[in-house]
């Protein structure tokens, strides 16, 4: 069972594989998917397995792309609409954070607050998204407020309950230790429970933000007459003009944007919680990139002192 001296095992249980192999394996999946796409949409007219109206081919999609990228009016621009959607998600999500995290901390610490909030959380977590779109439309119309409130309502109960369980999951031993060191209840909340729970909270926020970014189109698409922008609006345009390419481009854009956002959040997480992500941070390309960028603008005092005189 000896392993190659500087090698690795292809199916080593819970072991790492080299970076190049990991990248190649990922690339393989991309190429295979592209090949499938190409194969199902090759040929012309009725010969195709999937018709143009069902799924445009790779070539057709690439050909159409400049229409979204070099569009004269920002309304049709892919980047502009992505940013519009993103802004709405950030506003709604930020609002949900402002409400959800402090309330969640309080409810995680004190059973009475937890009991008061329990019905709201139950309701909020189980609200059907499709019904919520109708509700915010009825309440707020079709403006920006509606979209921000949609994200807010969709997220806040999840943020609340995840914060509560993260606080509750902090080991009782830490609380007892703090008590025997003379900490007051308030000090235990802010010096022990909150800092120890935050990495868990942040983890679930990363997941939720990704979901919220996918949800926002649900309300953007119910736009009666155009003008408000967003990726949902672009999707509507695709339907009206019978341009399935737009749909494909958006479907491909969303994961890339979501991945970028997640990487940014991960880097923020590494910087915020160095005590937890020391090793993981070193393995993350995004983190090292952020560090080299940071070091261009800011040098910690001690690295200056090491520089030759």
């Amino acid at each position: 069972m000896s392993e190659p001296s500087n090698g690795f095992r292809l199916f080593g249980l819970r072991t790492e594989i080299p970076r190049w192999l990991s990248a190649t394996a990922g690339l393989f999946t991309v190429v295979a998917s592209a090949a499938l796409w190409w194969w199902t949409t090759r040929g012309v007219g009725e010969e195709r397995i999937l018709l143009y109206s069902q799924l445009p081919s790779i070539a057709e999609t690439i050909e159409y792309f400049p229409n979204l990228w070099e569009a004269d009016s920002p309304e049709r621009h892919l980047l502009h609409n992505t940013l519009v959607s993103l802004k709405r998600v950030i506003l709604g999500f930020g609002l949900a954070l402002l409400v959800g995290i402090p309330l969640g901390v309080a409810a995680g610490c004190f059973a009475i607050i937890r009991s008061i909030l329990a019905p709201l959380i139950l309701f909020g977590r189980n609200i059907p998204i499709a019904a919520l779109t109708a509700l915010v439309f009825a309440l707020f119309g079709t403006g920006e407020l509606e979209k921000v409130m949609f994200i807010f309502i969709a997220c806040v109960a999840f943020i609340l309950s995840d914060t509560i369980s993260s606080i509750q999951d902090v080991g009782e031993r830490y609380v007892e230790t703090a008590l025997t060191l003379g900490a007051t209840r308030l000090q235990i909340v802010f010096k022990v429970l909150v800092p120890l729970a935050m990495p868990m909270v942040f983890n679930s926020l990363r997941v939720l933000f990704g979901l919220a970014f996918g949800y926002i189109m649900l309300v953007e698409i119910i736009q009666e007459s155009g003008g408000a922008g967003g990726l949902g609006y672009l999707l509507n345009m695709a339907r009206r003009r019978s341009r399935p390419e737009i749909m494909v481009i958006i479907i491909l854009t969303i994961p890339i944007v979501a991945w970028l956002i997640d990487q940014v959040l991960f880097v923020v997480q590494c910087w915020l919680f160095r005590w937890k992500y020391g090793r993981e941070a070193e393995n993350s390309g995004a983190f090292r990139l952020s560090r080299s960028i940071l070091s261009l603008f800011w040098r910690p005092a001690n690295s200056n002192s090491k520089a030759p005189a």
Partner: protein
Amino acid sequence: MTANNIVEFRQVTKTFNVGREDEFTAIRDITFAIEDLHGHGEFISVLGPSGSGKSTILRLLAGLEPQHPPTSGQVLVSGVPVLGPGADRGMVFQDYTSFDNRTVLDNVAFGLECRGVSKTERYSKAREWIHRVGLNVASDGGKYPHELSGGMRQRVAIARTLILHPRIILMDEPFGALDPHNRYQMQDLLVTLWREVQATVFFVTHSIEEAVYLGDRVFILSRSPGTILHQIEVPAPVRPAAEMQREAEFQEKVFRIRDILEDLESVKKNQDATVT
């Protein structure tokens, strides 16, 4: 009389889940007193079968729920009933409880921070204590707990307790998870520090050697519901742990106590046998 006792238990009984089907009496009628000798804190080792209520006694003293408050009887510290936890009674647990988000320095300074001591002052005290428990201020002070070994973590736990100068130190199997070599080192360290701070120490352990080596007195608890069966005076730790624990005289004391404990276990076995 009472005021002269740093710790006193008066007929303390703790029953969990009173009035329920799973009602369980962990300790019964425990009575003892530790005199408050000026300039000398006594070191009490606590031995007893698993489940005999050793942790229960310590947590009653610490004022930690659910063991606190006692079902009946009184737990007194300097003549005053224990009402809850406080920094005058430091506690070191078996599991590692360093705050993961704090460096060693900030862990050790935690208690002072809670008291509102200024940053410069608490850091300078913390550095002193990091040094005193045998850690390196420069290289270890900035580390986070996940970068430390088990022995180092327990050194941090001891430092952050002693920095507050508690009159009473409660240790619940603090070295239970350490290897023998580390254990000897920690025992020597504890003896040195204890001589300096002169606090009353309650030290729970499963190692008879450790109990005999460290203690002035060894309490032996009966099977549950625990009562104190014996209080045995043992010689002071005058030589290093690894050396003294090998001597014949020391071994003899250990064997005597082992016999007592094994008797307790065999009584239990006989009882179990008659039940089935």
